[in-house]
């Protein structure tokens, strides 16, 4: 689905990503975990074209999209649910979703828009109830659902999500993760960035661990869940301390 080779990016003099190579297969949920400032958001923003690539390749759909502008990348079927939701606050829920469908509009597949809207409303019934409400007045969880819904409206082949659980109550987080799992069942491919490593690894097929702009570990989720380093650093278990007790 997507293959990244030796990707490098940064801001000004700051190098953020150093020779990142990774891939996501069709139908997979792949998660990226890592500490604050490791470069996870930068990676997703680079893939989606918001941050400029300095070196390396991003192969999506057999094309190198590394130099493409964001609007072209979305059109090719790679959508991002940005960190911090970033909905259009002064527009209604329905308008937000319709803007997400702009790609269908460009592809002259306007007929699909209504159908997609119905589909999003069945995934997130709360959005249908709130469709005439300003997006800025939604609760955090509802905004996150709207952000996911908006990205799904373009019928992406690959959907990337940047910390969808950020700032949400445990119950809502569970709901969001259930929806992500359901997305895979419907044949979607998901690249998921998460602080909540345990929950992410539980639903993911594979994972990558980022540390200061490098991939330090990769493997299947099961392997990672049992990996001692991962457990210590990201799953909140201190094995040495446990051993002493």
């Amino acid at each position, binding site marked *: 689905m997507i293959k990244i080779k030796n990707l490098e990016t940064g801001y000004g003099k700051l190098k953020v990503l150093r020779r990142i190579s990774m891939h996501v297969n069709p139908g997979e949920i792949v998660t990226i975990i890592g500490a604050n400032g490791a470069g996870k958001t930068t990676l997703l923003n680079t893939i989606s074209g918001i941050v400029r690539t300095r070196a390396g390749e991003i192969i999506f759909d057999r094309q190198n999209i590394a130099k493409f*502008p*964001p609007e072209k990348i*979305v059109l090719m079927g790679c959508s*991002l649910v940005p960190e911090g939701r970033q909905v259009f606050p002064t527009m209604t829920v329905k308008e937000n979703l319709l*803007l997400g469908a*702009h790609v269908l*509009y460009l592809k002259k597949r306007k007929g699909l828009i209504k159908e997609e809207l119905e589909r999003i409303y069945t995934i997130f019934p709360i959005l249908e109830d709130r469709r005439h409400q300003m997006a800025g007045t939604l609760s955090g969880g509802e905004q996150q659902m709207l952000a996911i819904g908006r990205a799904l409206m*373009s019928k992406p082949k690959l959907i990337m999500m940047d910390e969808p659980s950020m700032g949400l109550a445990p119950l809502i987080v569970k709901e969001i993760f259930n929806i992500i799992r359901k997305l895979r069942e419907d044949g979607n491919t998901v690249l998921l960035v998460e602080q909540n490593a345990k929950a992410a690894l539980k639903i993911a097929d594979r994972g990558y661990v980022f540390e200061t702009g490098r991939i330090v570990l990769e493997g299947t989720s099961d392997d990672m869940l049992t990996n001692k380093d991962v457990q210590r650093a990201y799953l909140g278990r201190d094995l040495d301390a446990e051993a002493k007790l």
Partner: protein
Amino acid sequence: MELFFQYMVAGITYGAIYSIVAIGFNIIYNTTGIINFAQGEFVMLGGMIAVTLNNFMPLPSAILATVLITMIIGALIEMIFIRWLVNPSVLRMIIITIGISIIIREAALHIWDEKVRALPYFTGTEVTSILFFGAHISPQVLWVIGICSVVVVLLNLFFNFTMRGRQMRACASNRNSARLCGINAKNMVTLSFVLSAGIGALAGCVISPITYVHYDSGAPLAIKGFTVAIFGGLGNSMAAVVAGLILGILESFSI
């Protein structure tokens, strides 16, 4: 009492003019965050081009052609001066748009001259007047108020009920998110220049019989329009209309 109405109508007329210049400011500010200090020049160009074209063709087609030409000029200005800038600072944008306004003004001085011109009254002549609550009103005043109202209503419909309008609002609201929805933000910026140039030119046409036009008449209008735009809370078109009317009426009663 008649005098009151007379002043009131004059105030509303000028208020409508200020509002429409302010709306021009708002459209560009909303999609780009730029205050386009060349907005007044679009109004001036509208008046000047229409006067020239009116020598060759009837008034309605001259106005239509003028609006189209000014829209093209607006697009060119955006493509030449604005499009290639990457994250320009506010100060830089101010300097650039002031520069653009000076260029347009100088070009106008060369193309035309420093003579004051005016379009003919749309209906009747200077002396035609309609009696309204005892006040004498020129039909041109009704044209100004009418066209300004139509523009405001159409813009509202455009921004709220068309896909293009929504896209422009999305760009204004969150540029990166808009791009992630597949919206070409740069084209929306061009479109905002085209729109506000067209609206400015139309305003320039309707007001020129009353206010006259010469190469230097853009700047004062820009200042008034800018004041109104700020007064109405930058970016809010309905508030700009109210603010424009207030300023116009205050001015006419304080003379």
